[in-house]
């Protein structure tokens, strides 16, 4: 299968790599099939819609931010990232993580009901 993405141009992939979101993402309930794309040199993952490839969400594995983040068995938690040229303005949504099970190739998004996890967490701080 082939799709044309904004970041990587045309990519070809095997259909068994598609991750199925039965409920979709909040606000994107009509999209169910995604690819999780990662390049070696980058920190970020790209959750790219197979059905609408112009839609792609930058994400980061939340484990690099918080080792104690609420876990779901066999799933990895990702935060959707708002990128910015100025790294200090790069923000991660820790309030509504995306959980992905790579074995069953399924995913879902849920809201964590805790003030500890903001929707606009600043990803970077200056090294001291």
């Amino acid at each position, binding site marked *: 299968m082939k799709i044309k993405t904004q970041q990587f141009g045309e990519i070809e992939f095997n259909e068994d790599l598609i991750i199925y979101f039965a409920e979709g993402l909040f*606000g994107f309930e009509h999209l169910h099939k995604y690819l999780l794309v990662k390049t070696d040199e980058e920190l970020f993952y*790209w959750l790219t819609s197979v059905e609408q490839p112009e839609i792609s969400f930058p994400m980061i594995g939340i484990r*690099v*931010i918080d080792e104690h983040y609420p876990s779901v068995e066999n799933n990895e938690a990702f935060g959707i990232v708002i990128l910015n040229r100025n790294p200090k303005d*790069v923000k991660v*949504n820790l309030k509504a993580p995306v959980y992905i099970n790579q074995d069953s190739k399924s995913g879902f998004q849920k*809201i964590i009901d805790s003030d500890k996890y903001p*929707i606009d967490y600043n990803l970077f701080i200056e090294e001291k």
Partner: protein
Amino acid sequence: MLILTRKLNEEIKIGSGITVKIISISDNTVKIGIDAPQNIQIVRTELYDKVKESSLQAAKSIKEKPTGFSKLKIKKID
């Protein structure tokens, strides 16, 4: 929209799996209890809207490559 009137402690059933109960009523606040299957997401609408807006911004930001973060580190939560 279906509109029903309920008194304190009265309930509404939605389908076979969801029950909504009026827990308390004060001047302009109603406390609602909801019993629903685990796979049903229950979300305050304003929070849903915020999450949607944030995801839309994220999808629009894909060309904004952050540069010069060699002097920065990832902020961790303890």
